[in-house]
């Protein structure tokens, strides 16, 4: 098929809009009908997907696409005048190879998550009378339409961010997603837990919003700074101009010793630390698991957290301005290398000791994002972008798989309860509230839920980097290869993190799917209900990409073989940069390392958890000793931040600013002055008027009192009197205005 360039340009403008339209339609029109709402949302998301893939397909045929991009912009904000030499701020869209790749996977994963949500929200089941809006339902979700509206708005934010041609429009999409993540994490806002210490969805939502906002504020400063130095925010004008980059990399900044590009880069990176949940702003992401599972998949795989990494990949020419391979890293790159590598390892250790099936994946996400950030920090531009793509597929798969597991176990729990009732097991004591997300309550699900099992295994193996087949292997291998050449320290840290990744993944698979069922719920779990059909469809499609997405980035001379697609990804995405980055040569050392850590971690995980029996302690608890509790409790960062930031902020607000300063100091002074004036008046009356002026003085005092009394009369609240005052004002005003005119 042939498309004209004008058509593709128009299409690019339109890509983000269908989900926005869906949001508006659901909110304003279809919200009473669940069917119409999801048809609207999925239909319009599907439209965005088709348009995205058409654009992607079109770009494949452009030669030197990195230079001949699809771009269009309009004047958006007038500023100054042409005579002064200022230009209006422009807004526009841009499709270059990086955007194009993002469009490919973002639109698809979003669509699949939408489809999955139909089943996840129990579409087709009758409404359960016990369900309350704002709590997880047993029947069909009471707020079904609203859920699809939020998802649509979220998809709009992400697609807008992807097609944006400048930093400000990107930030718009970035923040819209922030709002949606707040709304979606807190979707079950009425939910409470018996344990008051357990974080509720509404608290998790606020935590996510505020933690990411910390990063966003730095980012906003970065954008303002860049704009004031570059006089533009357009990606092309800044990132593909050698002159501009040199200017930014050589102009001293407001911080001594650093150049403008360094400070801007660090500020923008702070935004990514928040959005992509890097240390030390990682705390929000695990708690964000309180949202419904499709939300977790959307926020933690396909879209929002990827947005942080995407922003860094996009801004890489600025972050690395003045740097050539082999040079010492620029300050922003160094920060990324350190933070990324540390986060990758740090959160992998936490993931090892989690018992909640989704929490493991959450920490795994933080860790994998750390891989990407670290790769970018050491200059592995392509490797970071590649891992972003593969991770989006396999992590969305894992999250959606875990959602299916949770639904299956809940289903089993329900079933088991009914059996217990009808079976006359009245002796059963009312059990403690059953936690369908605790992996220690599962086991043996492989037989009960085979499709979920096999797709989950594919996702898990991709995450572990299982060699040669899975996509995760190729992208992770490329990161390790880059690290091996550029920064051996980072290489070692990431290799250990990769080992832990494989280990906790196998732990998760073993506890969830293998062995014998460890609860009645697991025994009766099932994926045969009709609600599973859309869910399984999404899983199968994602599993396909979790394997194949890696094949486009295999090194040309890998093991000396000739590959069918000789590293297409490198050639395609590398075109974004001014200088095409040199492809790494094949090196057996990092390959050996990635084989060892991946297979070794998987084997070790299987070996430790193969014989786990119901009721036993976690086999890790013994060997790790006290460390196990530290890992399980996430190194106590939540408690630390609570003491360090949350409580002082509350004190500053409630006590310092409101009580002490406003009511105490400022109003206190005013009241003092007021009282002083009163007392002064009284002194004048008592000690001057009365004794000195006497008789005539009485008159003054009396008249003051009388004045006061008559004023009191005014305030009787009688409307006529007020109106009289109003009238008087009008009359005076009128006289003042009209009389001089009459005199003319």
């Amino acid at each position, binding site marked *: 098929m042939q498309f004209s360039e004008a058509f593709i340009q128009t299409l690019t403008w339109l890509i983000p809009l269908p989900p926005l339209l869906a949001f508006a339609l659901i909110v304003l029109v279809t919200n009473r009908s669940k069917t119409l709402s999801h048809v609207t949302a999925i239909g319009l998301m599907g439209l965005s997907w088709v348009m995205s893939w058409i654009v992607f397909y079109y770009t494949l045929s452009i030669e030197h696409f990195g230079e001949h991009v699809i771009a269009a912009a309009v004047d958006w904000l007038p500023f*100054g005048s042409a005579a002064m030499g200022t230009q209006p701020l422009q807004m526009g869209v841009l499709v270059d190879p990086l955007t194009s790749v993002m469009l490919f996977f973002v639109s698809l994963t979003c669509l699949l998550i939408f489809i999955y949500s139909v089943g996840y929200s129990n579409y087709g089941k009758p409404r359960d009378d016990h369900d309350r809006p704002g709590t997880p339902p047993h029947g069909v979700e009471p707020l079904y339409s609203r859920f699809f509206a939020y998802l649509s708005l979220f998809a709009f934010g992400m697609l807008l961010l992807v097609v944006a041609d400048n930093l400000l429009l990107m930030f718009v999409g970035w923040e*819209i997603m922030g709002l949606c993540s707040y709304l979606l994490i807190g979707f079950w806002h*009425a939910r409470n837990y018996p344990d008051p210490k357990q974080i509720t969805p509404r608290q998790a939502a606020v935590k996510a919003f505020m933690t990411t906002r910390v990063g966003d504020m730095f980012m906003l400063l970065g954008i303002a700074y860049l704009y004031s130095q570059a006089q533009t925010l357009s990606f092309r004008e800044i990132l593909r101009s050698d002159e501009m980059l040199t200017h930014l990399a050589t102009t001293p900044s407001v911080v001594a010793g650093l150049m403008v590009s360094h400070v801007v880069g660090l500020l923008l990176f702070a935004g990514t630390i928040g959005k992509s949940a890097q240390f030390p702003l990682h705390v929000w992401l695990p708690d964000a698991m309180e949202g419904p599972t499709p939300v977790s998949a959307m926020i933690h795989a396909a879209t929002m957290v990827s947005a942080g990494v995407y922003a860094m990949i996009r801004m890489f020419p600025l972050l690395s301005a003045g740097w050539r391979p082999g040079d010492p890293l620029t300050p922003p790159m160094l920060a990324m290398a350190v933070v990324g590598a540390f986060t990758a390892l740090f959160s992998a250790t936490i993931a090892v000791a989690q018992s909640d099936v989704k929490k493991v994946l959450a920490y795994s996400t933080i860790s994998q994002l750390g891989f990407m950030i670290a790769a970018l920090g050491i200059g592995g531009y392509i490797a970071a972008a590649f891992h972003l793509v593969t991770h989006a597929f396999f992590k969305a798969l894992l999250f959606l798989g875990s959602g299916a597991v949770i639904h299956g176990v809940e289903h089993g729990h329900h079933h088991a309860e009914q059996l217990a009732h009808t079976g006359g097991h009245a002796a059963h004591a009312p059990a403690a509230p059953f936690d369908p997300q605790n992996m220690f309550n599962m086991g043996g699900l492989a037989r009960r839920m085979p499709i979920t099992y096999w797709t989950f295994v594919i996702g898990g193996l991709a995450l572990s980097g299982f060699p040669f087949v899975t996509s995760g292997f190729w992208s992770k291998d490329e990161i390790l290869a880059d690290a091996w050449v550029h920064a051996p320290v980072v290489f070692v840290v990431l290799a250990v993190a990769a080992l832990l990744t494989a280990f906790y993944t196998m732990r998760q698979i073993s506890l969830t799917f293998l062995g014998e069922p460890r609860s009645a719920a697991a025994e009766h779990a099932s994926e045969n209900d009709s609600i599973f059909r859309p869910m399984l469809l999404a899983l199968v499609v994602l599993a396909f990409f979790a394997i194949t997405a890696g094949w486009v980035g295999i090194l040309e001379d890998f093991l000396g073989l000739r590959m069918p697609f000789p590293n297409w990804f490198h050639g395609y995405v590398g075109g974004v940069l001014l200088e095409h980055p040199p492809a790494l040569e094949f090196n057996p050392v990092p390959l050996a390392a990635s084989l060892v850590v991946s297979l070794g971690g998987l084997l070790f995980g299987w070996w430790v958890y193969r014989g786990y029996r119901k009721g036993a302690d976690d086999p890790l608890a013994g060997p790790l000793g006290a460390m196990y509790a530290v890992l399980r409790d996430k190194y106590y960062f939540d408690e630390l931040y609570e003491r360090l930031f949350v409580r002082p902020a509350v004190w500053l607000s409630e006590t310092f600013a409101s009580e002490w300063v406003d009511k105490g100091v400022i109003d206190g002074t005013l009241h003092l002055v007021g009282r002083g004036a009163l007392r002064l008046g009284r002194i004048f009356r008592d000690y001057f008027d009365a004794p000195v002026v006497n008789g005539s003085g009485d008159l003054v005092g009396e008249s003051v009192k009388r004045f006061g009394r008559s004023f009191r009369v005014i305030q009787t609240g009688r409307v006529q009197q007020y109106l009289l005052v109003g009238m008087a004002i*009008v009359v005076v*005003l009128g006289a003042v205005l009209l009389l001089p005119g009459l005199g*003319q």
Partner: protein
Amino acid sequence: MDALFQNNLLSLILFAPTVGALVVLLLPRDQVALIRWTALVASLAPLGLTIYLWTRFDAGAAGFQLQENYLWFAAINSNYHLGVDGISLPLVLLTTLLTPLALLFSFGVGERVKAFMVLFLLLETGMLGVFLALDLILFFLFWEVGLIPMYFLINIWGSANRQYASFKFFIYTMAGSVGLLLAVQTIGLTLGTFDMLAAFERWPAFSGTIYGIPAATVRTVAFWAFTIAFAIKVPIWPFHTWLPDAHTEAPTGGSMLLAGVLLKLGAYGFLRLVLPLYPAEAKLYAGVLALLGLLAIIMGALASFGQSDFKRLVAYSSINHMGFVVLGIAAAAAVTGSAAPEIRATAIMAANGAVLQMFSHGLSAAGMFLLVGVIYERTHTRNLNDFGGLFPLAPVYGGLLIFTSMASLGLPGLAGFVSEFMVVRGVWPIFTTLTALAMIGLLMTGAYVLKGIGRTLYGPLNARWQGHRLEITAREVVALAPLAALLVINGVWPAWLVTVINETVTRLMA
């Protein structure tokens, strides 16, 4: 006839509400519906005229447009002189837009309807007069005229603590007015005219002595008199403590206009009078002004987060948002007359942002007060701890509350973000550290906005409200809808407004 209409367009806008007030005054007291609708129609007339004015306004033309100049007080050479430019026009539009909406919402007021409506319309004339006046005495006159109806609105129709609040509001503002009046008289007597355009030209350069004191000293004193009067009105920290009381106790319609328009009078005073009359003094003390603006941003946000009264929380948020206006104005003041074009350009950005922020805040603050009023009317409580889980009971209200709160928070895509970004971008090269510190305030904005949403809508339903009808009514939605629409339009396509502002600001600073 047509020429008469064209030549007196500004006067028509200015006095249409007064005429409406007189008509309402003549209506029988018990015809409540008639009074309400008459007042609404009377307040729609200036809106229609302002839209027409907008089409007649030529953004590219220099100076004030549609001027009307009549001799008024011959003895002291004070004229009835009106005119608009790109700074005042958006504020005139804001006033004529918000008044009918606040009036429509105030259909819920059941006591002394006639007096309420009359005062409301007189208030509109007072506010419009400040934006339109080009004569110092006229400016001062309208400045005071706006004060009196608001005092009564709070004092009569306010809630429990209204006596204290209205008195505090009155005394605070009067304290500023005294200095303002003296300073205005000094200028007038010195120059022999109260005309602003003449004063802009001659007052900054006036040398010699006034009352035997060197002109520079008098100018500095007069500068502070102006500054304090306007600082109280904005309000700038630490002159702000009248605001939470007045806004909280005022009836909803009054709060909408207080936050939506009255605060802008102060900021407008800075731009219209302080910068042109005292360029040297403003430049000298710009740092102080910026620091106080920063304190307003941070302390306003903190105090807002510290409230448990929903309306007080919203009231404090105004201090936080107006802080950005002050910061933008301070940046513009700091570089007055600077030679470097980049610095002048950045000041233009800051000043554009300040004016746009006035408009954005007018929309979002009025919307927030309206929504707080809706819930207060039904529950008779404003305490956030009394609410909880109201979202399922009032989904439309909930959606609108989240939307308006996000606009207030400065969510990109809505009006507040554009203006805050312009201010941050414009101020950064001039007051770098202060801009960075302002981010603390912006962070806390998120905290208080989420507190408002979370305590009302989220959580398990407070059993007290089970079975209550809390949903917003059609009339209230109609009153909010234009605000919501403009919040989106200004966030997506601010150019229609910024073009007008930018032309004037650029001419003033370039």
